[in-house]
């Protein structure tokens, strides 16, 4: 049988029989698109006219000076339309959906970022759109729900399981097994059954391609290390893709939440709480118990709060091609505050994980060296979380006053 997307034994296609034909079609459509040079051109054209690609590579002069080590560059995925790298993936899949002649898209979302991106793409391409979102996330990410609805998407609050991202994925699959003929499932990260890890990586590779070209233009040489946060792994794979054949250290940063020892985290690649398993259609490291039941995860960054991880990153871990670290909620909020103050950049809480690790390592590197941090998204979407992390009393008063007026 033909290629099923294995990466050193991770990955695969663990899908219900009813989807086999759908996946065959998807793989064929993706293969055809990828081998058609016009397709990537079309993709680049839409990304540069509808979103803002190439996104800039910003030299963080003040951070560099402060840490006194490597020259710190920031890849600005936050400047994408809808505010994160998620746009790259959805627009790419949107073009495929058009090629496949489908008329409806569905997606899961945790932070809401991928949901907004998908709903945006659907509005642009004229697709019907349903977004599945764990009830817990619907509650904590209401602004994103509001925009998805304005964009014309139906947002379904998933009330099963732990009512977060993984449950939304399950629910999206349940929709898909019912409506596969009209519907494409726009998976939001480099996870899930083949060809999603490969396909999402392909679209996100635009990050790394640009970053490589940009850093060569600016520094005349490659960076020594590149940093990305790891939720499902798509922004990390996107950045890493640009440097796979180079002598560049790839550093992925997972969410250590309240600390590795607390159990309240989402560290799959460097924690004894994780082990290899098969769920949501693919084989990778999962946070699961001995029976194979998935555990609850935690991160201050909703977009990293996920039990699985890209099988390609599991491979990178296994073969030593990437190094994985973790950052706690506290470290993340501190790095976020510091980055805002020093550079006027507001990384998403997810992205701030990458900043934490880069800040730890930059001082130890040679001032002649460069590093790149992937700012996968912008943090103003996180105001409800960030304001809480800072415990800002004026913000709380504002909300209380607002509520008072709504009650009246």
């Amino acid at each position: 049988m033909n290629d099923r997307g294995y990466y050193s034994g991770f990955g695969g296609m663990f899908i219900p029989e009813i989807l086999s034909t759908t996946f065959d079609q998807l793989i064929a459509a993706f293969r055809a698109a990828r081998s058609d040079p016009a397709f990537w051109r079309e993709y680049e054209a839409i990304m540069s006219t509808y979103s803002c690609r190439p996104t800039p590579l910003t030299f963080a002069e003040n951070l560099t000076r402060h840490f006194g080590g490597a020259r710190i560059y920031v890849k600005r995925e936050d400047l994408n339309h809808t505010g994160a790298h998620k746009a790259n993936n959805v627009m790419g899949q949107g073009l495929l959906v058009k090629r496949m002649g489908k008329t409806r898209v569905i997606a899961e979302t945790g932070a809401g970022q991928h949901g907004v991106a998908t709903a945006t793409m659907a509005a642009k391409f004229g697709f019907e759109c349903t977004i599945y979102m764990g009830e817990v996330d619907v509650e904590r990410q209401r602004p994103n729900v509001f925009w998805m609805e304005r964009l014309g998407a139906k947002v379904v609050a998933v009330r099963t399981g732990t009512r977060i991202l993984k449950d939304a994925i399950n629910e999206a699959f349940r929709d898909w097994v019912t409506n596969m003929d009209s519907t494409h499932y726009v998976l939001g990260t480099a996870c899930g059954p083949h060809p999603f890890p490969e396909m999402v990586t392909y679209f996100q590779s635009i990050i790394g391609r640009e970053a490589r070209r940009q850093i060569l233009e600016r520094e005349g040489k490659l960076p020594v290390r590149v940093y990305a946060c790891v939720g499902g792994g798509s922004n990390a794979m996107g950045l890493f893709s640009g440097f796979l054949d180079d002598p560049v250290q790839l550093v992925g940063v997972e969410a250590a939440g309240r600390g590795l020892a607390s159990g309240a985290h989402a560290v799959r690649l460097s924690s004894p709480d994780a082990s290899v398993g098969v769920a949501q259609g693919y084989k990778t490291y999962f946070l699961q118990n001995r029976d194979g039941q998935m555990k609850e995860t935690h991160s201050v960054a909703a977009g990293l709060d996920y039990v699985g991880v890209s099988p390609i990153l599991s491979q990178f871990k296994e073969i030593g091609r990437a190094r994985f670290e973790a950052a706690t909620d506290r470290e993340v909020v501190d790095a976020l505050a510091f980055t805002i103050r020093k550079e006027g950049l507001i990384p998403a809480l997810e992205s701030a994980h990458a900043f934490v690790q880069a800040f730890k390592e930059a001082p130890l590197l040679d001032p002649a060296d460069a590093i790149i941090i992937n700012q996968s998204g912008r943090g103003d979407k996180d105001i409800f979380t960030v304001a809480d992390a800072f415990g800002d009393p004026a913000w709380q008063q504002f909300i209380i006053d607002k509520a008072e007026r709504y009650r009246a």
Partner: protein
Amino acid sequence: MLETHLRKRLEHQEILLMTHIVLGYPSFEDCYRIVEAMVAGGVDLMELQIPFSEPIADGPVILMANQQALAAGATVARCLEFADRVCREFPIPFLFMSYYNILFKFGVDAFAAAMADRGVRGAIVPDLPPEEGADYLAAMDRRELAPIFIYSPNTRPERLARIATVARGFVYCVARKGVTGADTRFSAHLEDYLRRCRAATALPLAVGFGVKDRSDVEFLTGKGDIAVIGTQTIRIIETQGIGAVTPFIRGLRP
């Protein structure tokens, strides 16, 4: 072997009945009483679902049952114990149904061994297509256990044939697109589909997803070999109690 057993039963019954329970839901004690009631009602074989936290192919009713069973403390070990007991005490074949991670974490070979040990006759693993199941097929084969595979209305002819080469016991024909528990229109369309299934395999055909009552079973009679009653029994237990199970099952066939 499972297939032989089923063929024998089919000599006496035009259509067999397979039911489904989620182990540990509402409790293992109740599950035992339900099995008892089902056997009394005349079921021919049963699926015992080992609950999983991510039951991707199940609809809301069975999904909730999975979650509640886990919340109430169901473990794989207790499920094996339960299977051990019912296989010893009741004269029908039992199958495990679960998702692949349960087998994978247990060790596929160890899991097959544990099944054989306890007298479980086969397994349905809806997220394990044959292409991903080489170890599983080998382990099941070694112990003469039946790996039950699935046909769907979307499965292409050459794939129906390919699946037939590895399937044992019977083939589970999903009656329609969608997850467990939603309504199925039993139609000419379905008849057509079952004809295609029959052409692809010599194994008995189970037909599942949406069988609710006697008229559904009647419709299937002559077209399939086994009617699978899944979600409907859970609904009956939830609304009318375990006492309603035996008459319900009994009423499904003339």
